[in-house]
């Protein structure tokens, strides 16, 4: 008894007696796993890029075509994520608040973008929104497919479940009493939603936004079919990477990938900080 007590005092603080054992094992496994899946590939990416040297890297970064491609990728992903936040939250609201025939069907449909091969979605959108397609012809002479607007539409499709599925569970937890309390205090429906309910959902909505945005930036399959892929106009960065690869310009491809990685990382970090701040204000949301 005494011996073991001294031993534990002298040993590592992490190894405190716990009713849930296995900390060392699970942490070790997690680190090894993360290394294999994420850290080593990213390290390889940076390694390949480093071969270019600073000047080479800057040349690719400053290249007009790269800048336009990055602008298209991040701009469309941002717009799509914003739209998804509005309509995804609305959809989550309808699914959690109302009981109507077909609710389960709609609920299941939300997950479709997860399951459907993205190329299939891309081809379907391209034919629908093309200037001679069902929907596209209605909007002529305004062109949707083969412009950045087409990209936004594809990314809305891809990102929608991320917003709905992160907001929905938090919405289900909202206490009916809180809404009723707002009503007894004289708040109308509008005030209740915008001053009482939505602030409570902010962290979840931000998470949904971050996920949809990150997914949109990396999306390739569905976008290339509807984008038209015109350099400087509707060419996305992932496509530019593939083009560079096909030219056997591996360093150029990894350089663009590195830039994307850095921008994405910076943006997700900012979103996380905003989240942490809004969470810190009133405990766990």
């Amino acid at each position: 008894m005494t011996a073991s007590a001294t031993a534990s005092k002298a040993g590592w603080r992490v190894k405190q007696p716990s009713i849930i054992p296995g900390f060392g094992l699970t942490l070790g496994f997690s680190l090894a796993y993360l290394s294999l899946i994420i850290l080593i590939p990213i390290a390889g990416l940076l390694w390949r890029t480093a071969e270019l040297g600073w000047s080479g890297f800057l040349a690719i970064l400053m290249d007009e075509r790269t800048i336009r491609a990055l602008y298209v990728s991040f701009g469309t992903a941002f717009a799509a994520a914003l739209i998804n936040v509005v309509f995804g939250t609305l959809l989550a609201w309808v699914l959690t608040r109302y009981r109507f025939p077909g609710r389960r069907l709609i609920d299941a449909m939300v997950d479709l973008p997860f399951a459907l091969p993205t190329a299939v979605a891309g081809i379907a959108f391209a034919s629908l929104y093309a200037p001679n397609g069902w929907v596209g012809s209605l909007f002529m002479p305004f062109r949707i497919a083969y412009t950045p607007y087409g990209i936004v539409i594809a990314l809305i499709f891809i990102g929608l479940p991320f917003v709905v599925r992160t907001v929905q569970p938090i919405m289900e937890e909202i206490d009916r009493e809180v809404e009723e309390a707002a009503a007894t205090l004289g708040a109308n429906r509008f005030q209740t939603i915008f001053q009482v309910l939505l602030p409570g959902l902010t962290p979840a909505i931000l998470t949904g936004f971050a996920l949809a945005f990150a997914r949109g930036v990396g999306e390739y399959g569905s976008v290339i079919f509807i984008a038209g892929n015109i350099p400087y106009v509707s060419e996305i960065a992932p496509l530019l990477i593939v083009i560079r690869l096909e030219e056997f310009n591996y360093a150029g491809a990894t350089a663009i990938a590195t830039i994307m990685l850095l921008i994405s990382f910076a943006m997700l970090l900012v979103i996380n900080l905003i989240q942490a701040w809004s969470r810190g204000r009133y405990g766990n949301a």
Partner: protein
Amino acid sequence: MEVRINNIRKEFDRFAALNEVSLDIASGELIALLGPSGSGKTTLLRLIAGLDFPTDGQIFFGEEDASHSSVQERNVGFVFQHYALFRHMTVAENIGFGLKVRPSATRPPKAEIRKKVSDLLDMVQLSGLENRYPNQLSGGQRQRVALARAMAIEPRILLLDEPFGALDAKVRKELRRWLREFHDRTGHTTVFVTHDQEEALELADRVVVMSQGKIEQVGSADDVYDRPQSPFVFSFIGESSHLPVEVKDGTVLFQGEPVGLSESADTAGDLFFRPEDVTLTDEAHALSGKVTASRRLAGTRIAEIDIANNGHAPFHVEIEVPLHAPIELGSEARFRPTRWKIFSK
């Protein structure tokens, strides 16, 4: 503000949660709605607030028929069982919310709202906590924030749903006394729901005892305890025992034998009495049974007695016995109620 509830009926999916309920609440009164779960007490409170609407009947606020006014129009203060504080707002923002959301024509200026919030914080003894968030408060503090928030809108009536239900026993007792003082100071018409009879009897001017969607009795604590008007009230409030009896020629008969009690009208029904309203006796005409257990209860001793029932399960009654008088387990106890009531079947 006086409130009149007139023949209210409320159905949920054809199940009647409230059935022909009428109640007059005088201005400045503190009323308790007391009953077991499912008795309709919370439903009645929500109907008064306008959080639900009656299937039938009217609710008057003074002379005004408020039956179909929205909850916003009714201007009631409602304190929810779990407080329902807005967790993303500070204590001060919570309390000021009802003033802030008013249309600009009636909204007080910011400085005035701030002044009012700080007055209310004083009143509920939470000064200095205005910038805390609800999750940084204890249960009793949250309860008082909820109360201050409800009072901020100067409600015509204050409604509390199980106000002490989620608190521990000690805080509960303190808050109970505090609420009584608060009520006496502000003079607001107040209705609260509880399933705790001690709370209702101690706190309320009048207690409304409810069961199965109906009002069983309305009266002061003395009324409902000393003069229960129905078997339900007699057994729900306080301790009691009951035995099936008959009244013939003015004499009360139990199992065909007189028990030394007389009653004016002949009837058959249940004889109700409280453990403390019993005297031990040696006389021939009395109730008698075997003592099966005895337990000490604060300043008294309670004996449990089984009265034989011709081979059926025995009748079980509880009586209070003198603290120091020897009453042995297994011995025969003879007793007679000194105060009782027979409810006809």
